[in-house]
């Protein structure tokens, strides 16, 4: 059996090695992330059968869980790890040609470490360890947002940094409270002991932790960094931030709220929060004329939708939410990647500057169109099954409040459709000028891979549904989580 700790250790080791490799051969460094993420992807795929049978619990350093740190590789964690490797691989291939200027070696190191941090967050079973990996994720994204060193990048990076640091500070205070109350940092251990403490005591730590993680996961009042950072980062990084970083944040929120605390009184509140995030994100995106900002706000909206789905906490909705999450990673990645080259060619982020791109860059425009269709939830693309599952799960609950929220979800889809179709019209049905020029082969490879994935998932969602279903029970079934960690 392969050991899941390699998912973190190998990219980390390779990242440490990059300066040495770099002094040996300049060209080789660019391919290090590709190799590392390929390795991770293969590892994830090989782990699937074992994980579906039983979650793998790795005790690091050989100390049993409440005393040592453990990795918990359940279906959910593996789903995220696989998604991170997949998106990371595709984007790293894209970056090969997209990132040409600036300190390229440092870019690839930071990029790899960002993904390592994300993998660590989703696999760890220890609260403080989660914080540490979260910091890796955050700090590398601060640096990557400012990668180009231009005005916008630096400005958004510093704003992101301030908010992110406040958020992680709050998270650390929450962890401190939790340690003070329970005397342990192991999530399974805390989950087991949660019933021994009066509920009201746990409120402040929980809200601090949710707020801290919420900053990264872009839940409504905490997400002000997102549009700036996503719009001014290099497009490959925007794709990763949108597709991986905020999802991982959401994972952490869900893990803490559902598995660790698991007190169902608060779930409905999160459903409302999700809808609020969804509506605000979509409406702000509606009013944008800058394409990357529009995509960024749309990410906020999608996160709201996923949060709503997770917060309903039934197997169906969580499966749907996870499906939507997978879809969002792939589609938004595709959108950012294709938009990246279109912006590169046209030299401006205004939607009007993309007029007539359908003629000049047909494949890139097609990629954008497919991504947009998928995100809006049109069949036969990957967005539809997710939306279908979410709505059906929510209606199955049969509560009037939730039915109304579902109505709002559908309403927001209309808004989302409007602004995406506006861009598609600009691409295809408005006249622009410029010469016809293809995106480079690496970028095309990346986009075609994602397009194939979108269509495949849309046509045959069952492929993922079973796995997602066990992932959702991994998230919701607190007892089996506790049981498998603390044998």
């Amino acid at each position, binding site marked *: 059996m392969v050991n899941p700790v390699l998912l973190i250790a190998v990219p980390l080791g390779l990242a440490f090695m990059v300066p040495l490799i770099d002094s040996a051969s300049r060209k080789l460094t660019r391919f290090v992330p590709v190799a590392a993420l390929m390795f991770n992807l293969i590892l994830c795929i090989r782990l699937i059968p074992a994980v579906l049978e039983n979650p793998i619990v790795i005790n690091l350093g050989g100390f049993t869980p409440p005393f040592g740190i453990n990795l918990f590789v359940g279906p959910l964690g593996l789903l995220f790890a696989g998604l991170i490797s997949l998106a990371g691989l595709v984007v790293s291939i894209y970056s090969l040609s997209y990132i040409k200027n600036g300190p390229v070696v440092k870019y690839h190191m930071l990029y790899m470490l960002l993904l390592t941090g994300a993998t660590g967050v989703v696999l760890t079973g220890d609260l403080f360890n989660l914080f540490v990996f979260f910091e890796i994720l955050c700090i590398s994204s601060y640096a990557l947002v400012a990668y180009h060193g231009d005005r916008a990048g630096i400005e958004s990076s510093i704003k992101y940094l301030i*908010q992110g640091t406040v958020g992680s500070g709050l998270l650390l205070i929450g962890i401190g409270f939790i340690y003070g109350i329970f005397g342990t940092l192991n999530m399974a251990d805390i989950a087991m002991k949660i019933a021994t403490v009066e509920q009201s005591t746990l409120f402040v730590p929980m809200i601090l932790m949710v707020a801290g993680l919420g900053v990264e996961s872009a839940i409504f009042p905490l997400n002000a960094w997102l549009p700036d950072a996503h719009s001014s980062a290099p497009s490959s990084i925007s794709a990763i931030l949108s597709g991986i970083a905020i999802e991982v944040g959401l994972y952490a929120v869900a893990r803490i709220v559902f598995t660790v605390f698991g007190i169902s009184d608060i779930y409905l509140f999160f459903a409302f929060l999700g809808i609020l995030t969804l509506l605000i994100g979509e409406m702000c995106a509606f009013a944008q004329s800058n394409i990357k900002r529009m995509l960024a706000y749309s990410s906020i909206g999608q996160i709201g939708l996923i949060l709503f789905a997770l917060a309903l906490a039934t197997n169906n909705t969580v499966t749907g939410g996870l499906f939507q999450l997978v879809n969002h990673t792939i589609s938004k990645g595709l959108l950012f990647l294709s938009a990246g080259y279109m912006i590169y060619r046209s030299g401006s982020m205004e939607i009007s500057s993309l007029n007539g791109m359908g003629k000049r860059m047909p494949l890139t425009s097609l990629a954008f169109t497919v991504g947009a269709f998928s995100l809006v939830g049109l069949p036969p693309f990957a967005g539809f099954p997710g939306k279908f599952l979410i709505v059906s799960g929510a209606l199955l609950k049969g509560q009037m409040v939730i039915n109304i929220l579902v109505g709002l979800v559908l309403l927001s889809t209309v808004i989302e459709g409007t602004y995406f179709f506006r861009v598609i019209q600009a691409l295809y049905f408005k006249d622009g000028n410029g010469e016809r020029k293809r995106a480079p082969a690496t970028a095309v490879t990346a986009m075609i891979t994602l397009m194939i994935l979108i269509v495949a998932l849309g046509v045959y969602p069952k492929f993922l549904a079973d796995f997602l279903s066990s992932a959702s029970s991994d998230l919701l079934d607190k007892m089996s989580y506790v049981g498998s960690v603390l044998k």
Partner: protein
Amino acid sequence: MTGMEILLLVAFGGVMLTYILGRISSSLRNTFAVVLSLVLVVIIALMYDKTGETIFYRGFFGIPMSFRIDALSWLFAMATSVLGCLSVIFSLSYMSDRKNISFYYSMLFLVNAGMLGVVFSGDLLSFFIFWEIMSWSTFLLISFNRGPAVAAGLKYIIMSIIGSMAMLAGTISLYTNYGTLNIADLSHLTVSASPGYQLFLLIIFGVAFGIKNAVMPLHTWLPDAYTEAPSPFSAVLSGMLTRMGIYGFLLIIYVVVGAARFLHAADSTVSSFNYVLAWLGAITIVIPTFIAMLQNDAKRLLAWHGIGQGGYMILGIAFGTNMGVAGGIFHTLNHAIYIVLLFMSVAAIQYRTGGVRDLNSLGGLIKKMPVAFIGALLGICGLIGVPLTNGFVSKWMIYKTLISGRAPFLAFAALIGSWGTILSVYKFLHNIFLGQLPEKYRDIKQSPFNMKLPIIVLSSTILLFGILPGLPLRVINKIVVSFGFDSLNISLWGIVSESGMLNTINLFAAILAGLIAVWLFFRIGARTIPVKQDDNYAAGAAVPRDRYSYTAKYYDPLFRMISPYLKDIFNTFYMKIADLTGYLSNGIRKIYTGYVGNYVMYIVLFISLMIFVQMKWSPW
């Protein structure tokens, strides 16, 4: 593989193949397109009188997706494929000098395939999926012409998404309640549904289909879309695509909910829904028809008539007797035939005049383009419902239903509609074909053969169905029976019923006799001398030779009288909503002020608000 699977495979496979062939050679693509559309017609024709259902896919979370064929879907599929075929043939020369023709053809086939998928769907899931495919591919075609078409396409797709979201909600609600989406199963299961739930289903699906069929308050996408789309596609759009809404109404009211069983029970909620729907249909007849009268754009005029005629169909279907439903379905078919014919005639003229469709700048083309004239003439005869054209039969059936169903106001509304139709389409015919020929059109040619062919085919169909309505009515009767109504008594020549019957052969004889009499009268007693058109008395002033049009202000006093009442207030209303959404969004995004201290403030505010609520009320 059953026939339906092969059919859909051919339809969707053709989309790709058309595009790929288009990259190779345009003539190859054109040949392939014609062959493909003919193949579709043949396959569907071979399916006549079959019923059955096959599951074709379980990959969507294990929900079985199936195809189903019965008389209803066969009729719609046949109409779709034939009109699609004619539209492709027509496009061959109409689109020949445009850009992106491969894209045009493949999207046309995609729309067609989507419609075929919709009508052959055996469950609501595949129905929804094909419906969506149909919707977004339509969107890509409506904006094909660029310019103002962009706004039209956006309007269309927004309303279309609203409709499909409503449909999604309804579909999923059915799924969560009954655990299946198979239409046949659902029709048994919904028997026990509460009246409230039935009403909910009808309303939520009604929104979706009402938008597609442009029922009055939901119609605003249609005029722009019809006007701006490429003309051969406008024909498909108005002939079949819009009428998928009618198919949907039939499916939801009479198949899924099964309203025929209890429609006329005293306390049925469904009957009140249908009553409201019938009134909406009546409004949809009257107002758009009169708005049509105000139009000076040939396609826009036809578009408004498209809405108005949709009202007749709704009226017939909603009234819910066997005669009414049959009339509604028949009118759908007839409308498809004559409106496609009219659009094609307009398109032929556009083709030769370089895209002109302004009624006031055309005229006198009758001698230049006689085929188009005959097409337009027969088309408007059908539209009005002149006896011996197909429109007459279906309108007769609807009138008869309304009168024998004691709904005088509805009947009156329908009648008013017909009156308005006559006024406005006469203007249409006159301004294009009669009157004076402008100088610049002195030497335009006949339209090419592949444009004439569809016009001739459709014109003869109008007469055929007008004289022998029994042909389509047999199929329609089967549909009506399958809904649970009593069978109609149909002969090849018409309909036999207890209170008054329709016999078109008698009519034919009478009208023929009348025509002969009139012809003889004028032939024998002719005392006229031909004068030139501009040989006119104009208060002493010389009449301009080039442009003498006494039709520029057609019906002007009438316009001045009615036009203040005929503003499209719904369009204004929706535009207001869109503006409002824009303002609101613009306001909301102002919360991201750009000052990072505020952003941190939001974080702190969030936490302290939570803590405050918790400490004050302790809800947790």
